[in-house]
């Protein structure tokens, strides 16, 4: 420890020709990804809870993202840097992105399928997470759910999303990893 001294900016690396235009940004990001990167904390994972709330009669959908992941994703999608903690607009942009990459189709006992009309409820920050909320009315006759969840997975191939469906005290888990885009669970 006694050997340490403070040396800031000991040398400077200049990256020439780094693309600055917004359109090229997503490409750069993808090119720079290396397999086997060791992330600080645990990033590139998101959790979604689908809760059958009997007291409200709603199906509640709660997505939890790492803010830092979400901020970079929003930057890629919207072509300029986003500040999720400082800007309500940025958060709304990001929610909008998530809502367009998440869907639930409900199957009744006769095998008839209807897409749930998930309404946007809002979003909020909790610690290092950003939560995005959606909800829909519960259906009387329900035997299975098909879930599509490509949020962040269309940006980073190694993004993994866990979905826990919580109904009548049971938890059914869907794991979106590798090339999976849609999963079905019988309830």
């Amino acid at each position, binding site marked *: 420890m006694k050997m340490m001294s403070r040396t800031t900016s*000991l040398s400077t690396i200049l990256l020439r020709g780094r693309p600055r235009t917004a359109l090229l940004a997503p490409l750069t990001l993808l090119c720079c990804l290396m397999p086997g990167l060791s992330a600080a904390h645990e990033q590139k994972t998101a959790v979604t809870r689908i809760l059958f709330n009997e007291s409200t009669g709603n199906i509640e959908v709660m997505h939890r993202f790492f803010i830092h992941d979400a901020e970079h994703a929003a930057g890629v999608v919207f072509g300029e840097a986003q500040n999720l903690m400082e800007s309500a607009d940025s958060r709304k942009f990001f929610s909008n992105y998530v809502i367009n990459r998440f869907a639930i189709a409900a199957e009744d006992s006769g095998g008839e399928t209807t897409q749930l009309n998930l309404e946007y409820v809002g979003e909020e920050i909790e610690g290092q997470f950003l939560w995005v909320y959606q909800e829909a009315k519960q259906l009387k006759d329900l035997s299975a759910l098909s879930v599509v969840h490509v949020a962040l997975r269309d940006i980073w191939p190694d993004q993994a999303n866990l979905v826990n469906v919580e109904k009548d005290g049971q*938890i059914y888990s869907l794991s979106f990893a590798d090339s999976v885009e849609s999963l079905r669970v019988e309830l």
Partner: protein
Amino acid sequence: MAMSYYPKEGGTLWSDLSTEVVIHTLEVYSRFSFDFPYPTAISLNAGFLGGMEYPMITFNGPRTTLQDDGSRTYSLAEKRFLIGVVIHEVGHFYFPMIVNSDERQWTWMDEGINSYLDSVAGREWDAEIPWGVEPRYIVDYMVSQTQVPIMTQSDSVLRLGPNAYSKPATAINILRETIMGRELFDFAFKEYSLQWEFKRPTPADFFRTMEEASGIDLDWFWRGWFYTTDHVDISLNRVYEMRMDTENPDIDYARQRETEKALPPSLYIQRNREEGRQTWVERNTDVRDFYDDNDQFTVTNKERNSYNSFLEGLEDWEREVLDRAVSEDLNYYILELSNEGGLVMPVILEMEYVDGSTEEMRLPAEIWRKNATQVKKLIVSQNELLSVAIDPMQETADADIENNYYPRRIIPSRIESFKSEGGGSLIGRDVMQDIKTELKTDEDDEQDN
């Protein structure tokens, strides 16, 4: 020497923070393990998302954004990420670069242990930043049905993030703060670091060294957290209230009579009264006899004699114990607990009494030793118990909070509380933008009108 290499894109984010974070990390990690043995520690800005570790050098991602006016800015999330990623990658100098576990076999041994220690260093850097290893955040993963145990060879691990990073990091934080206590844990962890410095520890070496250095049997903890996919969910199902018998019939029988009187009266008899209906016995008092003035709780000398001979039969010390118990007149409660999640953990109880006082009681995990699914606990208190809460500080990753309270409480869902708070907490305000708002004066108001 602690150093940082960065291009102009690093901006003040790097010039102000990176090297300071390297130094802080070396100080904290050395305190918990051993002095950093190498001459340099480097943080290099690589401009990708994330970070990567090598011996004595780390590549870290975050950069600033160039604004139209030529200035370089960064968001709060980016700042927090830089601090976190530099701590984490520099932490890898120790685990696994020096305590050289095999990350291809057991990723959790470097990523989990390092994520634990980076959370310690993070909290010591700035307690205001949410570092995210609070036990409640691992619950969604731990209740999920598509999991493998932490003790799975790394090629077969599903979802490496929570499996090898946050779950073991949360487990080790809980081991330190809730199971072992800081003093014992820190001693044992330092011992592990010193014994395995420049060597190749396997999981068994970590488990064994932590137990031997602390003298604590942690087999149950390793089994539950590292070898199973169980989760924590302890439920407080019932609380029984009991009163100790004094054996004195003049006291006990009178109490029993009171208990019976405390029951609600018969609704049917009450309705008869309301109708003004008199019973035969009320109308014809000549049929009353001895039993109309005495009930089953009437004490006779027969009971008093047997009480006296009971007292005479007691040894002196037994008599003392009985007299003391009778005079103290304490409250006895039996708590009926069940282990719903399967993972054995200590039971942390917060008792609230009628007089407004509270008391914390920490029952070690050994309470589950003879029965891992159900257990009863006797609580003796001078005060009358009002309510009990399990794990009030949410330090055990208990998955279902609703069954932690007796009597039960209504726990709103996230969306329900979000809506009741008017949609969004204060942190959702755009303070940087709002702060530019000018204060309105009376004149403005008049103009507005």
